[in-house]
């Protein structure tokens, strides 16, 4: 569904409103090719075309929400959307006033359409399979068009469309000896793919050495940006939103209370102005360019969605309770110098399956995975058998932080649970004097 069709549908629904009713219409449109690969061959391939409409019907201080899938046919979609609207109207009479109802009453418009240049998915898959000949490659290709729209009876008109590809894959040597890579964006360059595969072949060469088995204990470590993304993902889980703070559920509770802090070099921001995700909330509020979440190692601002903003009397600055465009400030360490600074310890390429071990103390557990090596005298000498860590971020981002890399990587999320994600993170690597391995 394109912008014109969506706005025409929204206009049709707005014309159906009764009395003082207000309607917000949100659209999520996706046309995606998905190709699963295993052993550098196609395991499962197909196409998904979906269009989902969300409506919020408001009258006075009451509101109800609903959603339905659309077909793409204007006549059929009017029928589906009107049916949903009638069901919401029927329910609206049975719900009480909502003291936390919050929406923008100011008309606003935006239209952002990203440029992209990449070949048909089948062509890219052919290039990939040829370039990775002889490798045990496993992963997923996802590509196609994404669009999100907002229209309201008040006068909001917003459209955010993009086309992108996201190739997320790993190459195995044997058992769990593997290296991981990702290539995602808007402009496909076969040379970039070949360079990434060449780097993986080098990584697999190191993987061919006998694996080092570590005993539990504390080890110096470097966490590459992809590993840092897992730790940041934990903080995004209740760490920054206003409701979690006001109800004392945030894992950063001790920081918010002034009892603990990160290292003063830690700065974490929600960078809406990165432009990969929409700049409007479903209630019509614009998002600011940036929100400082942690500055100088201390808690700065919360993410405030519309409902929490109303409940706690704060200004809306986010579409949801979790960051979608996280940024972690860079440090002074050149990535090329990391092995030398690490001297002896762990190079952690990726972390996996993190969860809160004790949220009150910001303690996270998880596993090493993919591209994790033992470094001695500044040289990578062997792969490491997977190990479990269990440690507090107050240490890893605090008293045990030695430096962050000068270079940062932009990581586009490969997640597709609720459609192809537009989340991203801009992250450096971390050098720490110790990480606690437990199993």
């Amino acid at each position: 569904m394109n912008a014109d069709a969506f706005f025409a549908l929204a206009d049709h629904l707005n014309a159906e409103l009764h009395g003082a009713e207000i309607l917000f219409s949100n659209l999520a449109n996706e046309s995606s090719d998905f190709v699963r690969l295993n052993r550098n061959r196609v395991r499962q391939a197909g196409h998904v075309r979906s269009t989902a409409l969300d409506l919020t019907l408001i009258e006075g201080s009451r509101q109800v929400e609903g959603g339905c899938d659309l077909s793409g046919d204007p006549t059929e979609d009017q029928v589906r959307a009107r049916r949903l609207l009638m069901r919401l109207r029927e329910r609206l009479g049975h719900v009480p006033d909502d003291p936390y109802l919050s929406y923008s009453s100011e008309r606003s418009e935006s239209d952002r359409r990203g440029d992209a240049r990449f070949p048909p998915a089948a062509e890219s898959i052919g290039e990939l399979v040829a370039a990775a000949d002889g490798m045990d490659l496993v992963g997923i290709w996802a590509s196609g068009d994404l669009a999100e729209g907002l229209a309201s009876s008040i006068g909001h008109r917003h459209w955010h469309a993009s086309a992108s590809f996201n190739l997320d894959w790993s190459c195995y040597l044997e058992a769990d000896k593997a290296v991981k890579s990702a290539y995602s964006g808007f402009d496909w360059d076969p040379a970039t793919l070949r360079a990434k595969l060449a780097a993986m072949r080098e990584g697999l060469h190191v993987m061919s050495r006998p694996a080092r088995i570590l005993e539990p204990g504390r080890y110096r470590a470097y966490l590459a940006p992809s590993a840092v993304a897992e730790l940041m993902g934990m903080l995004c889980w209740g760490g920054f939103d206003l409701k979690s703070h006001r109800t004392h559920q945030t894992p950063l509770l001790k920081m918010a209370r002034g009892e603990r802090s990160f290292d003063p070099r830690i700065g974490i921001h929600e960078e809406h102005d990165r432009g990969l995700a929409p700049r409007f909330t479903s209630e019509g509020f614009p998002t600011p360019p940036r929100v400082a979440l942690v500055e100088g190692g201390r808690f700065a601002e919360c993410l405030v969605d519309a409902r929490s903003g109303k409940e706690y009397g704060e200004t809306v600055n986010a579409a949801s309770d979790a960051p979608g465009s996280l940024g972690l400030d860079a440090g002074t360490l050149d990535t090329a110098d990391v092995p030398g600074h690490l001297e002896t310890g762990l190079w952690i390429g990726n972390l996996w399956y993190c969860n809160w071990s004790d949220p009150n103390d910001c303690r996270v557990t998880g596993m090493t995975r993919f591209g994790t090596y033992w470094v001695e005298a500044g040289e990578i000498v062997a792969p490491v058998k997977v190990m479990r860590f269990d440690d507090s971020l107050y240490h890893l981002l605090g008293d045990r932080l030695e430096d962050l890399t000068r270079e940062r990587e932009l990581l586009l999320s490969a997640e597709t649970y609720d459609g192809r994600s537009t989340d991203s993170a801009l992250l450096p690597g971390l050098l720490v004097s110790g990480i606690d391995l437990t199993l």
Partner: protein
Amino acid sequence: MQHLFDIADLFSSRAPACDYWTLRLVEEEQDHLEVRQGVVEPSRLTYSSGAMVTLVKDGGIGYGASSDLSAAGLRAAAERAGGWARVHARLGLFEAGLYPRSSTRADYRTPIEEPWSTLPIGEKLDILQAANAALPIDDRIVDWSAWLARRRVSQLLITSDGGRVSQVLDYVHPGLVAVANEGSQTQRRHGGGSDGSQQGGLERIVAVRLLEDAPRVAEEALALLDAPECPQDTRDLVLLPSQMVLQIHESIGHPLELDRILGDERNYAGTSFVTPGMFGRYRYGSELLNVTFDPTVPMELVSGVADDEGAPATREYLIRRGILERPLGGALSQARAGLPGTSNTRASGWDRPPIDRMGNINLEPGEGSLADLIAQVERGILMDTNRSWSIDDSRNKFQFGCELGRLIEDGELKGLVRNPGYRGISASFWRSLDGVGGPESLEIRGVCNCGKGEPNQSVYVGHAAPPCLFRDVAVFGGGE
């Protein structure tokens, strides 16, 4: 459901030319009601409908999915499926002839005592208000909610071989949570059925004691604030069914998935420490360990008549008397691996292709009561309700945390401990199983957020288990 049959008939009458096709039509209705701190949260009604066409054509396999259920829409989906079948024919991992064909004809509908529609929304909200009002029993309860969610999934699968499987699954999920805080210590306690999902209608509200459970939930959240940390050492461990669900899920269910063993999931969900040669001889656990794939248990989350490729649902032993018997693999994985399996090829919705998933994975009961298990423990911990889960990509090294723990000393339950956790290795943990509760202690539960697959899919999974006793497990509590 009749309109799905009409759409299917129309598609069949103009079926695409190919070796084999399936059409899977899925409709979902969801309703979510919640009261938080006495305020009715915005209710949410959603309706989803779409279809997936899968074609075996010209030596390849492809799928096309669309929310356009018109004849033209499904024809377009089939054309896209055909395009990908051509790519698969050229670059496919396996021969298209391995793709399973189904002529199964079967119907299933969740037996419901009280349909969702029989109670007006006002009365549903009254129940939630009453449950919610029973939670803030102390100023240290800082957040509290009660909810009621409904989901109906109607699915019709038809195939070019005459297969025709219709299934309508109904769920009502009640739940409660109380959050207690004092200073920098926060504890959460869930109840009211929040982690005990089953199929069913409004009768679930009474079955899970939504209203009656609220005081306990709040009292335990408060009590945990003052409880000592769980000790850190090696002790015997009694896991209640509310944690056994997760233990079974992560360290038996996932490692037995045949697509993981075949390597499909190595980039995302992971591989498995289980290898094809282990089936039929590997000692997975002690003699007390009996685990089934059982789609026949009434009201369990994934009970039904067939999987999403039309394989008839039958009960199978996965592990018997501790010995590994068969993997969790649907017909395609079975053909690729040359191993027996189960009818467990499932998709999360119309927009995702079926892959190997758990269905109902149950630990069969033994003998005796929970008290009998506790009586066998000289020095141990009882743990209740999962709150944290983490396991390595081959499903071996795990660490789990629970909401509540209780010390066990000389065969008796003692005081609460907070932030209880334990860690171990799947390959040895199940061999330390030394007690399995009897049929009267069995609880039918499940998880509603099992994630896997590329593209990602989240599905419901059923687990039934009694409480179990494990010897000499590493346990720990909170703190930096």
